[in-house]
């Protein structure tokens, strides 16, 4: 039950030559008496889409929080491009290129769509952004492009809290694109999307991956797991139980019984 199943098929072999962008090494997190994450080791390679699956409460979001610095690990390490980032401030980690979305989105609700995306491009904490008028114009142009790519252009001046559900989801992705993150940690991005929005989301994701973005998704949606992912990792009760191609992980009967709650 505790062994990690490593895949060894030919297709996986090709993917294994890509450089490791983010590595999680024996990561552990303890809250008082509860061990939320135990000894998790995972590698995210450049340009690969990895999906994390597992029952609710398995520690997937906690793992994301540990990677992004919103939580400090109790043990283990997180390495980004070979350098240890565990214990660093979340904004520091984000600036290095590790971006994320939240399960509850956490949009800047009282700002407009355009302002939300613009805010993601304004990295400096100072009273004004560097680069003067030229840079400011470039930023606005970039925001316009992103709004077009995420189908949000007609809603540019709508407040985030007035948006429909699917539109809010796209806004959270738009913010991520605007932040120029090279690794995306997406927490249930497809949940609750209608079929048309889902297709648009997958298309958007695929185009970003083609541009070099590395993605790690927490999802329950089987279509994402089977048709969008290159790798799948299965977590349960804070432990990584299996990691491999989607077919390998989904065909494992032990994991199915854990996930769907049937008796083994």
């Amino acid at each position, binding site marked *: 039950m505790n062994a990690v199943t490593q895949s060894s098929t030919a297709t996986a072999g090709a993917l294994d030559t890509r450089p490791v962008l983010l590595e999680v090494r024996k990561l552990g997190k303890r809250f008082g008496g509860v061990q939320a994450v135990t000894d998790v080791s995972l590698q995210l390679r450049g340009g690969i889409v990895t999906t994390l699956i597992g029952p609710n409460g398995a520690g997937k979001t906690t793992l994301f929080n540990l990677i992004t*610095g*919103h*939580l*400090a690990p109790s043990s283990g390490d997180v390495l980004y491009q070979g350098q240890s980032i565990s214990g660093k401030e*979340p904004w520091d980690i984000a600036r290095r290129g590790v971006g994320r979305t939240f399960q509850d989105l956490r949009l800047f609700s009282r700002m407009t769509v355009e302002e939300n995306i613009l805010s993601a491009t304004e990295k400096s904490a100072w009273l004004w952004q560097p680069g003067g008028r030229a840079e400011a114009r470039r930023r606005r142009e970039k925001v316009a492009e992103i709004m077009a790519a995420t189908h949000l252009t007609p809603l540019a001046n709508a407040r985030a809290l007035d948006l429909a559900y699917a539109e809010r989801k796209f806004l959270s992705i738009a913010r991520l694109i605007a932040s120029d993150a090279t690794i995306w940690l997406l927490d249930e991005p497809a949940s609750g999307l209608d079929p048309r929005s889902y297709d648009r989301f997958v298309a958007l994701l695929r185009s970003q991956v083609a541009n070099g973005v590395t993605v790690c998704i927490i999802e329950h949606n089987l279509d994402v797991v089977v048709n969008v992912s290159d790798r799948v990792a299965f977590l349960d009760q804070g432990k990584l139980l299996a990691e491999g191609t989607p077919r390998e992980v989904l065909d494992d009967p032990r994991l199915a019984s854990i996930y769907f709650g049937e008796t083994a």
Partner: protein
Amino acid sequence: MLLLQLLINGIQLGALYALTAGGFSLIFGATRIFHFAHGAAFMIAGYAFYEIYDKLHLPWYLALIVSALVTVAFGVLLDRLVYTPIKRHENSFFTLFAGAFGVGIIVQNMIGFFFGRGFVAISTPLSKGVPLLPGLYVSPLAGIAVVVALLAFFGLHAFLSRSHTGMALRALADSPELVRAYGMSPQKLSQTAFALGSLLVVPAAILSGASAGLNPSVGSHVMLISLAATIVGGVGSLRGAAFAGLLLGLAESLALAWFSSQWSEAVVFVVLFLFILFRPSGFFGRALVH
């Protein structure tokens, strides 16, 4: 000899600070409310005793009971009539802080109106120093302060770790749903926290009124001590707040060996600031996360 005297005074002061800070920490730990009217509770306790004992000349135990009842009622009513309605409308640090702040202002000024702005003292022969050694004066109040503080904290510890209500109080801040699942009402528990926390300041206020005196601005000083001790002791740790209160009392008293008394608040601020700089989680606090 001066240092020994200051040390003993510091222990007396520290015991009273420990009680006061403990009350604040208990309330904050259980309800997560930044009870900025804690200083007001202190003032009500002290002035109520003064009114009954010094002005109306009734026996001290009567004054004690009335003071305790009034202070506990104040704490509980504040929760029911001010904090709970505020939380229902908009539950945020700002609104609760502003509400507590407003109450503190009302109390401070009402007390100033009825009792005057100058210092009043609860007169008792117990505040007179008894020479134990040449140059060393200890008043019985010091002993009483320490004994009361010790009794209060042992009692509190037993209550929090053994009784159902006590254990529920400890769980309240983190999981009110769990508390409901055990058949207890978070609202009643919250009121219990306020009652207990406010009760703790009663002896501190009375003893303080007997030794240092009371005036309407004593509330802000009490707030500073409570806040500083809670931070220095570690947010979430009752033991820490009590211990830090003792430390602050000792520091304030011992500083008199080198600085004049106007700088006593400066000492508290310096200790607080040093902890914020070098050990923000305090003595026993949990690590802070984003």
